[in-house]
């Protein structure tokens, strides 16, 4: 246990930061804790932002997260950290304040990747979606009934935005440069199931084509997108859903190992410096932390999952509190997405999978569970409205069981082994 005079600072008043600070306290850390947040808001929950906030069922400012352990913390909200000085052990904020730390948790997360043409990205009607303020702005724009919404990018955020538009009865088109929706995460095989589902909702899906440029009406408001195939789509509201960039710029000059894909951590969760040595005063958690996952051969991953932010935040809190010996962080990755009333849940990492079985149900009926395998091992399972089976498969995946697992547990007979069919560039 740490000396009570030790000071802890959490940079990132996020889900990972909040759960990390709570975990420090639960692990017995008795010194002062300061939470620093770039946004003016207390930590809030993101999952509703791409769903019920957009449909207007929940207001953006109702998403403040429950605090589960009394923190007795100091809060610096609305002021970003701009520099980390490890020699003097201080975090410098945008307003010049320097906060000393003995233990530091980095949970600065990620931001939406901007449209590559900055001028076009600033046009009226062009949105990204990541933060609470983004969601409130997009909600206002949707409530103004645009003639058509164009979603650029068919990943999870893009799919959820499109489904929300259909709940509102708005015409919506998704343009995805890959072969189908969600192909990078799920492969073409299941991605095409998702695309069919969206078409059933009335979403226009245009895959295999890129948006080349955005055009305005002469007054600075977007009216149209030009596609690489020479066609154009008229839309007065564009949602750029091209993934996320990690918030690591403030670490410039800190001597730590980072880039736009995250800050490098060791297996325990301590951050690494430029020559690969851990700094045992500093841990990272959530979207910003890139760490070697023991279940996947130590492959370095940075995961943007809700459950991961909670679990890794809690892990980092215990680590920084000095509670018990360091154990590698090995939480099985898991996420959910809800689109058009269908709940998609995933455990494990599908990346690099070379085979796939439908282990339960039938994609044609809309309710099924698929297991992904790689090199003879089960590495991930994905359920569509079939969540109650998922924990059994999660257990098998965590235990590194062969592919396909649970051979005798169904009445389906031998599995047909399929290819997940991932796009080439992600192989």
């Amino acid at each position: 246990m740490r000396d009570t005079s030790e000071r802890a600072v959490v940079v990132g008043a996020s889900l990972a930061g909040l759960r990390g600070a709570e975990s420090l306290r639960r692990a017995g850390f008795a010194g002062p804790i300061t939470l620093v947040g770039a946004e003016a808001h207390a930590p809030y929950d993101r999952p509703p932002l791409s769903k019920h906030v957009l449909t207007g069922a929940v207001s953006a400012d109702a998403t403040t997260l429950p605090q589960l352990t009394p923190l007795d913390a100091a809060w610096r909200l609305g002021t970003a950290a701009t520099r980390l000085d490890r020699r003097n052990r201080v975090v410098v904020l945008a307003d010049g304040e320097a906060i000393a730390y003995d233990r530091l948790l980095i949970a600065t997360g990620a931001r939406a990747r901007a449209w590559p043409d900055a001028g076009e990205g600033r046009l009226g009607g062009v949105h990204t979606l990541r933060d609470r303020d983004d969601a409130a702005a997009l909600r206002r724009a949707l409530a103004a009934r645009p003639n058509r919404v164009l979603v650029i990018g068919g990943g999870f955020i893009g799919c959820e935005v499109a489904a929300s538009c259909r709940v509102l009865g708005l015409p919506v088109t998704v343009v995805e440069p890959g072969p189908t929706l969600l192909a990078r995460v799920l492969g073409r095989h299941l991605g095409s199931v998702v695309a069919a589902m969206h078409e059933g909702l009335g979403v226009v899906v245009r895959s295999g084509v890129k948006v080349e440029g955005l055009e305005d009406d002469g007054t600075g408001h977007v009216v149209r997108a030009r596609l690489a195939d020479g066609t154009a789509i008229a839309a007065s509201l564009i949602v750029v859903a091209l993934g996320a960039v990690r918030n690591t710029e403030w670490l410039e000059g800190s001597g730590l190992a980072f880039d736009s894909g995250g800050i490098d951590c060791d297996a325990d969760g301590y951050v690494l410096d430029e020559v690969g040595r851990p700094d045992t005063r500093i841990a990272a958690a959530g979207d910003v932390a890139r760490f070697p996952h023991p279940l996947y051969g130590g492959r370095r991953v940075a995961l943007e999952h809700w459950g991961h932010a909670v679990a890794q935040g809690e892990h980092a809190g215990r680590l920084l509190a000095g509670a018990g010996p360091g154990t590698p962080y090995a939480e099985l990755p898991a996420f959910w997405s809800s689109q058009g009333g269908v709940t998609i849940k995933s455990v494990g990492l599908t990346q690099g999978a070379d085979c796939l079985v439908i282990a339960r149900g039938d994609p044609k009926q809309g309710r099924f569970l698929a297991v992904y395998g790689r090199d003879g091992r089960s590495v991930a399972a994905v359920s569509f409205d079939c969540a109650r089976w998922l924990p059994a498969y999660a257990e098998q995946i965590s235990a590194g069981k062969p592919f396909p697992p649970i051979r005798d547990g169904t009445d389906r007979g031998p599995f047909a082994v399929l290819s997940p069919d991932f796009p080439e560039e992600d192989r």
Partner: protein
Amino acid sequence: MSSPPTFDHRPELAGRAADPTGPLPSSPLRVSVDLNRCQAYAQCCYAAPDHFVLHGREALFYDPAPSAADRVEIERARVACPVQAIQVEVPGSNDR
């Protein structure tokens, strides 16, 4: 298309008391559900039907900021969840 259900988060309704001359409205409760854990047993929907609704087969829609006046219902929902996926903060219990 039927219009989606909504939760009313107008500040003047937060913490609305049965007695309109009673104390000033307090902050809302804070609710979060771990939807990785949720398996759509829907016990919360029976315990607090105004705040938890199941959409489709297993998409749980919940009110993240119920009025403090509904604390008993929300607590009933939290306790009823077979997988303990519901987290609740009671106003005044923390320092934020």
